[in-house]
């Protein structure tokens, strides 16, 4: 009985633990009413803080190409996971499932960025992901 209680307590505790906020409020920048799904070709990636940006060319049904900027997280985290500048190169085809910016520009957040086959663009480390568990290469 006691273990059941503790289990329930820990389940409820999940809701209030683990800090979950990015450098800034994405809800202030991107519009939940404007979901976008973009398939495009990488033109460049800006490895900058606080958040990295991936630029992609997206071609519509008429063949018109539009460049989009996709906001991601802090590159410091990726570097610790062994991802380098060579991991994302111009010409790569990716799929971005996110939300467009509130100001209507061609910005989106990279809520879920994958290759066309559905694999994640950035995989976590093989360890736990804690910095101490992923010695620098």
């Amino acid at each position: 009985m006691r273990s059941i209680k503790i289990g329930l307590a820990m389940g409820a505790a999940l809701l209030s633990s683990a800090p979950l906020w990015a450098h800034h409020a994405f809800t202030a920048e991107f519009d939940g009413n404007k979901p976008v799904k973009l398939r495009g070709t990488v033109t460049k990636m800006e490895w900058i803080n606080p958040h990295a940006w991936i630029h992609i060319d997206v071609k519509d049904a008429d063949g018109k190409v539009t460049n989009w900027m996709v906001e991601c997280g802090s590159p410091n985290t990726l570097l610790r996971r062994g991802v380098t500048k060579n991991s994302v190169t111009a010409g790569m085809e990716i799929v971005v499932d996110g939300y467009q910016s509130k100001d209507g520009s061609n910005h989106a957040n990279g809520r879920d960025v994958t290759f066309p086959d559905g694999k994640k663009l950035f995989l976590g480390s093989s360890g736990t992901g804690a910095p101490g568990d992923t010695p620098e290469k």
Partner: protein
Amino acid sequence: MRSPGFLGGRAPRKLQPSEHPTEGSDSMKLLCALVGILVASMCAGQGLVAKKAWTPPRTADGQPDLQGVWTNATITPLERPADLAGKAFFTPGEAAAYEKRVVENANVDRRRSDISADVGLAYNEAWWDRGTHVVKTLRTSLIVDPADGKLPALTADGERRAAGLAEQRRLHPADGPENRSLAERCILWGTAGPPMMPGPYNDNYQIFQAPGYVAIVVEMIHDVRIIPLDARPHLPSNVRQWLGDSRGHWEGNTLVVETTNFTGKTRFRGASENMRLTERFTRTDPDTILYEYTVKDPATWTKPWTAQVTMAKSNSRVYEYACHEGNYAMTGILTGARAGENNSAKAATK
């Protein structure tokens, strides 16, 4: 208040949250007196766990050596969740189960049905680095005092200031950059300290020591805190700094840092500019610093409170976090707010 007897490792804890071993119960004093100098040295201060205390190495000038890169990433929350009331420590088995469930639950690659929550989670899991373990002490909250693991009640003044700020944010969410948080403005990260708290990523600190000084490089957002050890007085009270004004001294192997002179905009968890912070750094084994801080701010909380975080030695390095360079988001937030106002104005004229 001294740290309870944390000696590292993940063995089940014997201490209870209400215990303050340094104050020494009568029975403890008697025990120490009886078993001679060797054991007494273990009983003194923290010796409720029968394990030989580890002695940290020294720097060339004789300071206990805290140098290196450390991370305080952890999933242990600041306050004890209501459902764990009365339970100050996990057993190792409970901690493992808790860690597994928290990490699975927090994984942001799983999309959320609540649209606002889904937008707020921002980007894929690989970008996050919240840590995957509870603190090494197996505590269920970072707060150790009050014993219930909760922040003390706010004073009337603390409540009034919090309500005033909330109202300001409601009326002026994004008129200009000054309305946004210090973190969004790349000025100060809310958990980077002092006091230093675990955050969602980049929880990395590098400690340097030189004769008369300790310096702490904080990855988020780019600060270096320089702490003189020469007992000089604090800055005059009219000089206010984002990180406050720190002075350090050694008490045995523990670095004690007193910080005052915060700005009225720093507001650590709603604190006033007169917050007085006492931090204690104790290296308890080669790979661990027990970091404890006490917040005294009678203008904000009805009593002082104390939290503990274990910091683990990291094989990584501290990277530059040149926040202003790439802060396109501030532009996006402000132009988004203007677009919203224009849309509202158009809707009103129809």
